[in-house]
């Protein structure tokens, strides 16, 4: 650009300033597309100032214009303000086609009886996917993500043994009101008597024990009978476990290495008892949610 002749030849207008004797500046206009884009951004900015929070004014700022109001089905206002993607999200969560469809489904499932839910594959699939989320939010903390439980504190919900009953009505009751699981400790049962009783309890579920010991233990079983029943099948009305099946909800019999260990575990339960509590959820969850969870838990593995 320092070449004087070159500038003259091109006949390009210069700004007229001359630096260092021969340094000139071309006066080329900006391209039109650039210029118009620039004007457009100015117009955009002005519109934006009006519509959105923009200028600081003292301690406050200009709030923009309320352009969007989102209401739920009953007409309650959920959001009111300028448009943004958050407003759109609130609107979509409330009023989009899929949200409405979900509400319809929830409505139809909550209207239906348990029998209808369980016998309809579509309702069942919906209850399972919705129940899964609610289970993760409310139950998984104790019972594990898949309902597998944590021994010996939180029972396994996937098997078909139910301390308080495995019908939908019973499960619903458990969820609504919670359960107080309480087996008193029998500290007075000591020594050989405790050994014999443990042997008898093991024999109920088919474990091989000394027949004589089991026979003697049967006498001591009298104190257990009130809850666990004469035949040891338990009582769901008070959460007394069935002692004749293969499932152990407290003593970890399957993990024991030998008979002595098994007996020691049983003895521990007899002498110290069990205190477990399931909190009530009736005041925390809605009726529909309880229904969804009940169906979900019922279908985890062994509803009755």
């Amino acid at each position, binding site marked *: 650009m320092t070449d004087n002749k070159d500038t003259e*030849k091109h006949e390009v207008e210069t700004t007229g300033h001359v630096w260092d004797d021969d340094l000139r500046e071309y006066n080329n206009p900006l391209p039109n597309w650039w210029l118009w884009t620039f004007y457009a951004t100015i117009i955009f900015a002005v519109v934006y100032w009006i519509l959105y929070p923009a200028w600081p004014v003292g301690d406050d700022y200009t709030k923009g214009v309320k352009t969007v109001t989102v209401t739920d089905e009953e007409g309650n206002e959920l959001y009111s303000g300028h448009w943004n993607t958050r407003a759109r999200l609130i609107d979509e969560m409330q009023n989009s086609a899929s949200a409405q469809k979900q509400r319809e489904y929830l409505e139809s499932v909550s209207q239906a009886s348990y*029998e209808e839910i*369980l016998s309809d594959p579509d309702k069942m*699939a919906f209850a*399972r996917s919705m129940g899964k989320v609610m289970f993760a939010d409310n139950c998984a903390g104790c019972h594990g993500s*898949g309902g597998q439980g944590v021994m010996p504190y939180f029972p*396994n919900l996937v*098997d078909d043994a139910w301390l308080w009953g495995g019908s939908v009505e019973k499960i619903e009751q458990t969820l609504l009101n919670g359960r107080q699981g309480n087996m008193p400790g029998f500290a007075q049962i000591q020594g050989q008597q405790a050994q014999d009783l443990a042997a008898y309890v093991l024999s109920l579920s088919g474990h091989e024990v000394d027949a004589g010991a089991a026979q003697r233990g049967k006498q001591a079983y009298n104190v257990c009978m009130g809850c666990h029943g004469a035949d040891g099948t338990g009582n769901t009305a008070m959460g007394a476990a069935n002692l004749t099946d293969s499932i152990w909800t407290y003593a970890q019999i*399957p993990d024991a290495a030998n008979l002595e260990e098994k007996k020691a575990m049983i003895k521990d339960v007899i002498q110290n008892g069990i205190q477990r509590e399931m909190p009530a959820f009736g005041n925390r969850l809605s009726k529909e949610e309880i229904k969804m969870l009940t169906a979900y838990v019922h279908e985890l593995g062994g509803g009755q």
Partner: protein
Amino acid sequence: MADAQPEELYKAREPIHPRSVKGRFRRFKTGVLVVAYGVFFLLPWVRWERTAGPDQAVMFDIPTRRYFLFDLTVYPQDMYWLAGFLILAAWFLFFVTGMFGRAFCGYFCFQTLWTDFFMKIEQWVQGDRPKRLKLEKAPWGPHKLYKKGLTWFLWVATAFWTGFTFTAYWANAPELLVDFFTGQAAFAAYATTGLLTFTTFLMAGFLREQVCIYMCPYARFQSVMFDKNTIIPAYDFKRGEGEAGRHKLGRGFKKREERHEQGVGDCIDCGYCVQVCPTGIDIRDGLQLACINCGLCVDACDTIMDKQGWPRGLVRYAAEKEIEGGEPARVIRPKSIGYGFAISVVTALLIWGIASQSPMDFAVNQVRQPLYVTLADGSIQNSYELKINNKQDRSVELDISVAGLPDPELEMAGSFESLTMEASGRQRLLMRIRHDPSELASGQHEIRFILGAKDREMEPIVQETVFYVP
């Protein structure tokens, strides 16, 4: 050079107003136009009977993720067909280009078709080339405004209907039509129609041959596929130029014999071939980038030759080899065999892929939390989540069984024994397998879920998974 003005790098486009022409290739071109427009504009309105899904013969249904093509329903899992189809289309294009040059450009490309149709509108409103050129030069006035305005109005109408028709492939056409004009259609429908209206109007109305010359990538790499055997519209320069070049008809140059005596060729330099060219080139300059192989110059020259009573073919479809040496082009050559083979293979694979479409999608996921559970009677239970997607247009009563275990007990979650899948329906199921562990070694056992139909009119689908015993 120091004194020279710098060369101007930009040249404004001069609008091309091709003259009309009659002839074989013009007729063929019009025929293709009618067929292509007929298919494109009418197809969305063709109705089709289905158990599940819209009653539209061809519809690309994005919300339900299904493409309906007559009796074929394409699911997202079948999308590799699209890859096969595109490969086939590309190779077929290369093949045709290798054999016949830019035949696609000249007859089938939508840019050519729409430009051609827009030119027909122009001709119908404004008249043939001389009148159009005159109108172009004329100052703006009521007459020019009326002629141009009417042309533009018809262009916009055509462009709009083009855009709307395209949109109608993605929705139920009659419903869309009503929704569109009552303001109830989806934003995407307005956006698509609007964008295509605008681009069609712009591309076919104003940009025209510039699209072929500057924008289309195909024009740029076509030369790779050409060879001396490729049949292209060519000027027979030996015959046309003779020894002394071309010469206009005039005193002493009227008869063929007179001309030949003076060494003058058969080209009378009438310029008709240039005037009819939609891309505004002179075919007598030889093969060039802008030529779209439409053959209108052939028709033009044939018309002149017929009038003169001279043999046709001064401008004709011929290979370079034929023009230079008189040898006819070879059709069977490595290029045609290679492309032919590749096209056949892909076509066969595509047909096989479509014919062997799985009637259902079937996925089995073992529940891993917990992996297994011991039941009251001591048996082991594993749970599985099944996802089934019926791709058939009929409802099917499912028959699910399991193989690979000596004595499995299979149970569906929920109190239903059998399950009927609606046409095009989807279902998620929880299934449980129970087994006596005393019959099985501990560890994983390979098992197979077999999904069949109770009516046996479906090839069973097998999914492998495992059964875990502690």
